[in-house]
C-alpha cells in the first residue's frame, strides 16, 4: 500500500490559484480570500485569510493543505471580515460541507467565490508535514473520495486529474466492527473514548458545529458531563455523532485533528451508511432544502417500532 500518489499537478494548481486570487482581489470581486499558505516547518501549510492582492503569492496547494476552510465561513468564526463577497479555496470534500451549510441557510452562494481545487488526496496527519503522499500516508477519507473534481465552482484551476484507486479504509473498518458483538464493540469504543481529553478540537474544526452555545457547554440542564472521564467522553461522542447524522459532509476534520487519534469519522461514516440505506441520502455538491432528518415520508421504515 506504499504506492506513491501523483500530486504533480498541485504545482500548476498553486500557480493558477495565485493568479486568480490576484485578479479577483485586484478587481474588487471579493474582499477576502480564505486559502492555504506555507508555514514555518518544512512542508507544512496553514489556513490564511488574505485581503490584499499582493498577498496572493502566499497561496499554495500541497498534500499538507488538509484543512476544511469552510469552518471559517460559519457563525462560529466571527473574526473573519464579512463585508463583501469572500473567496475560498475548496477541495471536493470541503465543497460538500459548503453545500450543506447553504442548505442549512448558514451561507448564501452569491456571497461566495469558489475556487474549486481538483484534489488527488491530502495527508492523514500533519504531525510530520514533510512526507510524500502515498497509499499509507493519505487521509483515510481520500481512499473513499467521490469528489476529486469539485463542480459548480466559479473557478477551477485544472480540469483533469489522475486519481488513485485505493482500498476503502472506512468501509473495511466499519465492516470489521459490524461483525463484532455489541459487547465487543462497547469494549472497542470504551478504549477509544477513554483517551479523549475534551479539548473539543473535533467540535471546533467542524463546519457543522456552528451552534452559538453547544449543548455540551450548557449546565442548565447538564445533559452531558463535561469532565474528561470515560462516562462524559462517551456521552459527548455519541451526542456529537447524532447531531451530525444527516449533516456531516465527510471532510473527516474531526478525526484528523484529534490529538488522541480517536477514529471519530468512523462514527460519522457509519451514520452516513445508515442514512444511505434508510433514506437514500448522501452528502453531495447539491444544495438540499432539507436534510434527511428534517424531513420524512409516510412510508418510512418503522419495523423497529411496536
Amino acid at each position, binding site marked *: 500500500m506504499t504506492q506513491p500518489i501523483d500530486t504533480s499537478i498541485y504545482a500548476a494548481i498553486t500557480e493558477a490559484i495565485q493568479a486568480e486570487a490576484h485578479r479577483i482581489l485586484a478587481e474588487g470581486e471579493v474582499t477576502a480570500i480564505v486559502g492555504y499558505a506555507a508555514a*514555518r516547518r518544512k512542508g507544512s501549510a496553514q489556513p490564511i485569510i488574505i485581503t490584499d492582492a499582493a498577498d496572493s503569492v502566499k497561496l499554495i496547494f500541497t498534500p499538507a493543505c488538509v484543512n476544511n476552510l469552510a*469552518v471559517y465561513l460559519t457563525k462560529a468564526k466571527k473574526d473573519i471580515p464579512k463585508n463583501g463577497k469572500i473567496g475560498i479555496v475548496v477541495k471536493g470534500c470541503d465543497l460538500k460541507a459548503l453545500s450543506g451549510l447553504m442548505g442549512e441557510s448558514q451561507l448564501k452562494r452569491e456571497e461566495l467565490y469558489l475556487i474549486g481545487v481538483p484534489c488527488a488526496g491530502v495527508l492523514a496527519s500533519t504531525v510530520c508535514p514533510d512526507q510524500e503522499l502515498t497509499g499509507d500516508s493519505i487521509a483515510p477519507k481520500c481512499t473513499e473520495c467521490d469528489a476529486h473534481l469539485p463542480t459548480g465552482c466559479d473557478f477551477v484551476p485544472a480540469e483533469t486529474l489522475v486519481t488513485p484507486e485505493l482500498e476503502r479504509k472506512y468501509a473495511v473498518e466499519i465492516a470489521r466492527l459490524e461483525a463484532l458483538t455489541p459487547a465487543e464493540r462497547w469494549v472497542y469504543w470504551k478504549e477509544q473514548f477513554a483517551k479523549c481529553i475534551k*479539548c473539543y478540537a473535533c467540535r*471546533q*474544526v467542524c463546519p457543522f458545529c456552528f451552534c452559538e452555545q453547544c449543548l455540551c457547554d450548557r449546565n442548565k440542564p447538564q445533559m452531558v458531563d463535561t469532565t474528561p*472521564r470515560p462516562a462524559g467522553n462517551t456521552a459527548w461522542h455519541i451526542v456529537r455523532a447524532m447531531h451530525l447524522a444527516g449533516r456531516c459532509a465527510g471532510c473527516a476534520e474531526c478525526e*484528523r*485533528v484529534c490529538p488522541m487519534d480517536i477514529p471519530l469519522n468512523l462514527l460519522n461514516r457509519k451514520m452516513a451508511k445508515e442514512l444511505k440505506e434508510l433514506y437514500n441520502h448522501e452528502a453531495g455538491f447539491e444544495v438540499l432544502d432539507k436534510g434527511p432528518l428534517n424531513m420524512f415520508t409516510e412510508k418510512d421504515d418503522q419495523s423497529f417500532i411496536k
Partner: protein
Amino acid sequence: MWPPKKGNHSGLPLPLRPHMQKQITQQNLNILLDSLIKEGIRVVAPHMNGGTPLYEPLTCSADMNTGQLPRRSAKEAFFPVCEDIMTYEKEGQKVTVTDIDPVRFPETVLVGVRPCDAAAIPVLDAVFSWDYKDEFFLERRRKTTIIGLACTTADDACFCTAVGLSPAETKGSDLFLTPLVGGGYVCETYSDKGEQLITNHKELFSDTGGAKTLPLAQPETGKIDLKKVKAWLDEHFEDPLWDGIATRCVGCGACAFVCPACHCFDIVDEGTEKAGTRRKNWDACGFWKFTHHASGHNPRDGQPKRYRNRIMHKFKYYDDKFGQTLCSGCGRCVRVCPVGIDIKAIIDTILNSEC
C-alpha cells in the same frame, strides 16, 4: 501574598547537584521497573496505546516504549486530566461531604520523561504552591520520583534549545538517564529521591566505565532572546499582530491540553441532587467559555484576544510572577494544532518586528 516572592514555596526539596553517577544496563533497568511494579509502586512511562504514544502506568517493563515523544505531557502524573476532590451524599436533610484524602495517592515512579516534560514540572510547582498550597498537586509531587531521559531524536517542531533548555536538560529530574552506545544508560542523581532509588537497588547499578554516550538530538532552533520577547509583549497588548496570527485559531483546547506547562483547570460538580462528586479537570484559555461571565459578558470576546492570552501568559505574565518562561519548547502544540498555529513562528515574528 501579592506579588509572590520568587523562590521555593512548595516545600519540596530543592534539587541537588549531581553527586552520584552510575551506569545501568537496559536489562537491569527493566528488572528495576518490574520489581517496583511488584512492590505496588505505580510505574508510569511512555507506552504505545494503539498507535498513540502516551505516558501510562505499566503492567510490565517490556511495555515501555521511549521511541516517540508521548502525545500528552508528563504533567498529568501530578495534575490529572480529571480528578475527584470531594464527594457528597444527601439523605433526607442530612448531607455528608467526604473530602478525597491526598494521602491515598499512589507512590509513583515516572520513568523515561523527556527533558522538556521534566523541566516544566518545577514550573508547575511554583504555580501550585506560591499562595494556595494545592495539596492534590503537591502530594502527588512528593510521592513521585522522576527519571528523566536525554533525547536522541528531535523533529522540526522541537524547540527546547530556543527557550534555554536542551536535550540533556536535567531540571526537574530526580535521576537522569543518558543512553550509551551499545545500550544501557549513564545515570546521574539530582535529588535525595533519586539517590534513594539507586541505594535501594544498588545491585542493579554499576560504576561508570567511561562508556560513550549516544549523540544527543540537535533541535534546529538556536536560543532566542526571551527578554526581548517579553519586552515586546510588555508594550504590545494591543497590536495588529494578534489579529494577523490568531484569526485562524478555531478555539479548541488541544494546545493547552498537550502542553507540559499549561495548568488551568475548572471545577465542576457532577451527579444528582442525591449524590455526586466535585471534580477538577483541565481547562484552556482558548475556549470561548473560559472567560464567559454569568452575566453573558465575555471580556475576551474574540479568538485573537484568547490566543493573545496564551502567548502573554507563557512569555510575559508568568515571567512577571515567577521569573521563568511558561514554555519548555516541546513543540507539542505545534504538532497538534488543527490549523497549524506555530508558537515558535510567532516568537520569531515578534523578535523580527521593528517596534
